[in-house]
C-alpha cells in the first residue's frame, strides 16, 4: 500500500440550490501525509471529502489523485476509501464479511477473501472477533473494523469523516495513537476531517483550517497555533484573548494597537499599517502576572479547574473578558477577587486584520 498525492485544483462546489459549499480552493496534500481539515460544522470540510471520494462532483476545477484526473469517476472507481462519521458498518454481516466486502465487490473467491480479512483484522488486533456482529463489539473495536474494511480495498487515500466523535475521551485518545500508527505502517495518505483541534493537533502532519467554504490557513499544527494567519484561525485554533482596535504605529515586525482597554504592543506578521482595523490575539497561557509589558488591571470572576492547569476567568477594569491559564502548582489559589496586574510579552501576541471570528460557546449554542 502506498499513498498518493491529492490535489484540489481550483475546486469550487455549488449545490443545485445555489449554495456554494466550497469556494475556489487550491490544495496539495502530499503522498503518505496525515492531513487534517479542521473547521466548525457547516464550513464545507465534509463536502471537500465527498468531492475527493467521488460522491460529489466539483462545479469547477478538478480533483487529482496521484496526478490522475478523477473527473467522472464514481466513488467505486477511485483509489480512495471513506470512513464515515457513524462508521456505516454493515450490521447484518459478521465482522470478517464487513472487512471482506471490498474483496467481495472485486470478485475475490470466498476462501481467499476470508484469509485476507483475517490478515487485516490482525493488523487492527481484532483477529478473535471475526465471527461477531458489529453490534457485539465495543466502540473502539467497531472503529478498527471500519479502518480494516477501508484498508481492504487497498486505497491510496483514506478519508476519515470525524470517525472518533462518538467515542469517549479515553478511547478517543487511544484511537488517535492507533490511527497514527496504522497510517505510519501502511503509508496511505490520510485526510482527516474534524472540528476537534485536539485530534487535529495530535495526529496530523499538516492541518488546513477552514471556515465558510474557504481554507484560511494550511500548515503544521504548531505553526498554525503560534502563527495564525487570519483572525478566524487565531480564534478557532486554541483559546485566545481578543482585543479589537486600531493600529497606532508600527515598528519593524511589531505594531502598537490602540484598544478600548489600553494600548498594546504585539507582533505584526501581516504588515498592517497605521490606522488599519485590527484584532490583537494573545493566548491565555501567555498571560503573565508580573510583567511590565502590555499591562492591564483585572479581577477574578471564576476559577475553572482543568486538571493540569487552572483556567482563570477574569475581567479587566474596562470590562473586557480575559482568560489566564495557570499551571496547577498552587499559584492560582493565592489569587483573590481583588484587582491584579496582568500583562503579556509582545512576542507572544499577534495583531491580525479584522475578520470573522470563530463562534464562541454562546453563539454556537444559539446557532444549533
Amino acid at each position: 500500500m502506498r499513498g498518493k498525492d491529492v490535489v484540489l485544483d481550483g475546486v469550487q462546489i455549488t449545490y443545485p440550490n445555489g449554495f456554494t459549499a466550497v469556494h475556489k480552493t487550491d490544495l496539495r496534500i502530499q503522498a503518505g501525509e496525515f492531513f487534517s481539515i479542521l473547521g466548525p460544522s457547516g464550513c464545507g470540510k465534509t463536502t471537500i471529502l465527498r468531492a475527493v471520494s467521488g460522491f460529489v462532483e466539483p462545479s469547477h476545477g478538478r480533483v487529482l489523485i496521484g496526478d490522475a484526473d478523477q473527473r467522472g469517476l464514481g466513488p467505486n472507481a477511485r483509489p480512495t476509501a471513506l470512513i464515515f462519521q457513524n462508521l456505516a458498518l454493515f450490521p447484518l454481516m459478521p465482522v470478517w464479511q464487513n472487512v471482506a466486502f471490498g474483496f467481495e465487490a472485486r470478485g475475490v473467491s470466498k476462501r481467499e477473501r476470508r484469509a485476507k480479512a483475517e490478515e487485516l483484522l490482525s493488523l487492527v488486533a481484532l483477529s478473535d472477533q471475526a465471527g461477531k456482529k458489529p453490534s457485539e463489539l465495543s466502540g473502539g473495536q467497531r472503529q478498527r473494523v471500519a479502518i480494516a474494511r477501508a484498508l481492504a480495498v487497498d486505497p491510496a487515500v483514506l478519508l476519515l469523516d470525524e470517525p472518533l466523535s462518538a467515542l469517549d475521551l479515553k478511547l478517543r485518545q487511544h484511537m488517535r495513537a492507533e490511527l497514527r500508527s496504522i497510517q505510519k505502517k501502511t503509508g496511505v495518505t490520510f485526510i482527516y476531517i474534524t472540528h476537534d483541534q485536539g485530534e487535529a493537533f495530535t495526529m496530523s502532519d499538516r492541518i488546513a483550517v477552514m471556515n465558510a467554504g474557504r481554507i484560511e490557513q494550511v500548515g503544521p499544527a504548531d505553526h498554525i497555533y503560534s502563527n495564525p494567519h487570519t483572525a478566524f484561525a487565531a480564534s478557532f485554533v486554541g483559546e485566545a484573548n481578543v482585543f479589537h482596535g486600531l493600529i497606532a504605529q508600527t515598528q519593524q515586525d511589531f505594531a502598537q494597537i490602540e484598544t478600548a482597554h489600553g494600548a498594546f504592543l504585539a507582533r505584526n506578521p501581516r504588515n498592517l499599517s497605521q490606522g488599519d482595523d485590527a484584532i490583537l490575539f494573545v493566548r491565555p497561557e501567555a498571560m503573565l502576572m508580573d510583567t511590565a509589558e502590555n499591562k492591564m488591571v483585572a479581577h477574578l470572576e471564576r476559577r475553572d479547574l482543568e486538571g493540569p492547569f487552572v483556567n482563570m476567568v477574569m475581567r479587566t477594569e474596562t470590562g473586557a473578558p480575559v482568560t489566564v491559564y495557570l499551571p496547577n502548582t498552587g499559584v492560582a489559589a493565592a489569587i483573590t477577587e481583588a484587582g491584579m496586574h496582568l500583562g503579556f510579552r509582545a512576542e507572544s501576541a499577534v495583531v491580525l486584520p479584522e475578520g470573522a471570528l470563530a463562534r464562541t460557546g454562546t453563539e454556537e449554542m444559539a446557532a444549533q
Partner: protein
Amino acid sequence: MNGLLRGYGRGLVSIFFGAVMLWAFLLIILPQFVMLERALTKPKRQLDSSIAAQLERDAANCVAILAQFQTPVDPEPENGGMAVPSASGMAVPSASSMAVPSVSGMAAPSATAQTRPYILQCDRSTTRKRMVRNEGIEEWLNDLHDLPLLAVSDDQPLEDQIATAEQIEEIAAALYQDLLILEANASQLGLGNFSALTQPILIPLSDTAKAEEAGKISNKLLGAAGLRYVENGEVYARIPMIILVRTLVFALLATALALVVCYPIAFKVALGTPPEKAVWLFLGLIIPYAIVELMRIYAWTSIIDNSGLINQALLWMGAITEPIQFKRSALTVFVVIVYTYVLFMVFPIFNVMSTLDRNQIEAARDLGASTWRLHWRVIIPHAKPGIAVGCIATFMLAAGAFSVPRIISRGLQAEWFSQTIYNKFFESENSNIGAAYSFAYTLVCFLMVGLFMWIMRTRLKDFARVQ
C-alpha cells in the same frame, strides 16, 4: 409485564389483557374451532336418520296422492281441463318441501281408477334405499336395519299400494326415531367433508372435445399432478383441488409480480429521492389507496369491458375486428389483483427501507460494490422483514380475493377458491363442506406462509422492525 404494570397500573393492564384474551378467543380461536367442528360433521342430509325421515315423508305423500285416485273423480270438470291441474295441486295437503310434479294434469284425464300414472313419491317409497356413503361403499337401508323389502309397485291394486305405503311410512317413522336417538348419542365426526376436496368429478365431453382437451398442456399438467384422469373413456377431474391449486399458484405469481414492481418503487421513494420530492411520490401511492376497494376494482371494468377503453381503442385503430374478451381471461383477474393489493407490498418495504442508514449505501459504493451487489448484500438483507411482511400480506389477500374475481370475471371463468367456498356456504347450502374447504385452505395458506418465512430465514422478531 412489570413494565406494563408500572406504566399503566393494575386496572388498565387487566382491562387490556382482558380485551386481548377476548379478542383472541372470539375472533381467532373460536371461529377456527367452529369451522373445524362443522368441517368434521357430516352434512345432515347425508345422515341415516334423514334418509329414514325422507322415506317417511315420501311414503306419506304417496299415500295422500294415491288417496286422490280412490275418491271418485268428476269426469266433467266444470271449468274444463284447465282447472284440474290447479285443483290437483291443491289436493296435496301434506305439502312437503318437495314439489309434487307427478300429480299434474295427466292424472285427471286418465280417470281409470285401477292404473295410475307415475308418482315420484310412490316410486321413492321403498325400503331398499341406498345410503350416503363414501365412494365405493354401497349400503342399503333394508340390509342395514333388517327391514322387510317393501316397495309401492304400480301394478297392484290401489288399496294394496296404499297399504304398502302406509306400512313403509310406519316402519320409516319408527326407524327415524330410533336413528335420531342413536345418532344423538354417537359421534358424527369424520373426515368425509375434507375428502370432498379431492373428489373426482365426471366431466361430460363429446369425443371430439375429449381429443381436443387431451392435447392441452394445462390438462397434461393436471394429469401429471393426478388431478385429472381418464377412466373407461370418461374424463374425471378433481375440480375443487384444481381450483385450490390454481388459486394458490395465481396468488404466488401475483405476490411475485407485486414484489418485482414494488421493490424498485419502495427503493426509489425511500432512498433514491430527496425527501421533499418523495412527498409527491408518496402521495401518488396514497391516492389509489384512499379509494374504496370495490371502486378500485370496478374502475377496471371501464378499461377491460367489451366496449371498454382498450377494446374501443384497438377497434378504432383497426387492430382487431372483434372485442377481446378480457373478462374471460384469468390474466385480467391476475392483473387486477396485483393492482388492488400492490400497496400492501409497497408500504412495509418502504417503511423498512427508509430506516436504512444512507451511509451504508455510500459505504458499499465506496468499497466498489456494483448496483446489484449493493442491493443483494446491503439493501435487501435490511429490507427483508418488510419484504416478508409485504409478501405475506399480498399473498394472503390474493389467495383470499373474492371481490376481484367476482367483479372482473362475472362468472365467465373458473372460480377462485374463495368463490368456491362462498358458493358451498351460500349457494349450495352445504356449509359442512364449505367449512372443510375453508379450514383446509386456511391450513394450507398458513403452511405456505410458514414455509416462506423459513425460506426467507425471517424470524418473528424481525417483524418488529417493520412497525
